[in-house]
């Protein structure tokens, strides 16, 4: 196109400036902050070297967070990605009538449209030991109720279960679309060769949708390390420290304990994990293109 040389940059500049000033600059500032002792009310900052890192890795919450984020990650991979994929295979199989496929898919997907906060608050009611849905059901079956979110041994599992309820249908829907994109002839040819539905899924559908499956896995893992709202809106990290996670710890260090340096280190830790995973994802999506 014949235009003056600066014209394309006029189109690119506003967006680029936004991204640089509100995404890149804060992220790099955060790395800087992690070497200082900082407070939000005073302007002064004292250089402390790696002291914030030492405090972070020796904090009593650190192993708890690793365990909780890790558990969330592993269970989500098994349920959302693993079971979600099986669910997508079932929905797309000939066993489910064409007319109700879409209905199932939409119903399973619906919870992912509700905000994390609303789901968190809904489940605090569902898990409520006195009037909650779960204990009411158990009572109706003459079984003893539980404290659920109030029990430090199971609270994190209650939160994880809530997320599986919310997001399994989301992954299932993404996998459904991926399976629909596999040319039908492949499956038909295999059926003529005598392959049953399970064999067709394992040897044709899943390998063909491999890329989407990997992407779904990476989204799920990244999500597990950004976990924040789900815990904030249900237990707030309690009882005790039992449901503490990295994202919530960062928030609490910064805005409850006014320890911005510690929050920054937590940020750097999340940054390293999520950037590494994103690079991996980029490699995966690019390798599929050629």
């Amino acid at each position: 196109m014949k235009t003056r040389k600066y014209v394309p940059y006029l189109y690119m500049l506003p967006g680029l400036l936004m991204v640089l000033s509100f995404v890149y600059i804060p992220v790099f500032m955060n790395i800087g902050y992690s070497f200082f002792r900082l407070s939000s009310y005073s302007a002064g900052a004292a250089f402390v070297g790696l002291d914030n890192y030492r405090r972070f890795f020796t904090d009593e919450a650190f192993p708890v967070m690793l365990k909780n984020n890790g558990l969330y990650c592993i269970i989500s991979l098994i349920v959302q990605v693993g079971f979600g994929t099986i669910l997508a295979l079932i929905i797309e199989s000939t066993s489910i009538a064409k007319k109700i496929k879409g209905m199932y898919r939409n119903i399973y997907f619906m919870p992912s449209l509700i905000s994390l906060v609303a789901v968190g608050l809904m489940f605090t009611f569902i898990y409520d030991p006195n009037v909650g849905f779960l204990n009411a059901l158990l009572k109706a079956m003459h079984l003893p109720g539980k404290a659920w979110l109030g029990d430090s041994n199971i609270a994190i599992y209650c939160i994880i279960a809530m997320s599986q309820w919310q997001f399994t249908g989301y992954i299932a829907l993404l996998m459904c679309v991926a399976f629909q994109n596999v040319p039908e002839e492949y499956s038909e040819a295999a059926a003529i060769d005598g392959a049953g539905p399970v064999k067709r899924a394992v040897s044709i559908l899943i390998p063909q949708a491999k890329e989407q499956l990997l992407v779904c896995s990476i989204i799920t893992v990244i999500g597990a390390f950004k976990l924040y709202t789900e815990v904030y809106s249900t237990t707030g990290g309690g009882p005790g420290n039992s449901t503490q996670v990295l994202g919530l710890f960062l928030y609490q260090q910064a805005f409850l304990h006014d320890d911005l340096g510690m929050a920054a280190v937590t940020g750097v830790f999340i940054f390293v994990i999520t950037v590494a995973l994103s690079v991996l994802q980029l490699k995966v999506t690019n390798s599929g293109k050629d």
Partner: protein
Amino acid sequence: MKTMNGHKTSKVLLNLLCILLCIVILAPLVWIILNSLKTNPELFKNSLSLPKAWRFDNYAKAWKLGLYRYFGNSVLVSTVSLCAILILSSFLAYGLTRFKAKGAGIIFVIVLGGMALSEQVALVPLYKMLKSLGIYDTYLAVILPYIAFRIPFTVFLMRSYFLSIPVELEEAAIVDGYNSFQIFRKIIVPISKPIFASCAIVNLNFVWNEFLFANVFLNNKAIQTIPIGLMTFKGDLRTDYTTTLAGLIIASLPLIILFFCMSKQFVRGLTAGAVKG
């Protein structure tokens, strides 16, 4: 015959599994809806029973108690953010794809790289920045970060769509004497409607439900968005469970309704979105 029977049993079992899962998904929601239509004593007596009288006034009460304000704030923040995200991203993608400009490759890598950076990591420095800019605790305090954080992914989607538009269309327009902005407005945008719709939906889902930034950057109750409003609401209403439940449902309805109205577009947007989420 045997395999036919086996096939039939598995068909019945799989259908039963699907129905069972529907119940698992819907039962908590139905329970919430039923209890939002009761009085509090009724809820405390037996949360599994049907309401004696359907108390729709719980919804009116939740709305009047302040939900209308949070709702209005969310509409405002979402509309402004969404428009800016779409405009800035489509400009950027247009500049990247249609000019063969020097340095476009580097700019693309920088913008795309933004997708890997998460909100948590920027939280503390952003908080300080917004304070020193004097916009902390204003609508702009969330709108600006929302726009910045959603541009990379939106550009990514739009860029691949723009690349698929044939150059011949533009060449004809240049002959007609169109300048680059007229080409953008009269040719690129109309052709790209589907990708604009997908991007709008995926971003709306993010902006409407965003919690982390809104929770830290909006302190004043008068400007808080719905997700924060719900937390405040629950705190204020402590024992008034039924009104809180009604509020949760009102807050969740817009996107669910939107989804059922445009589920095809939504699915397409999400498929594109699966590349990052």
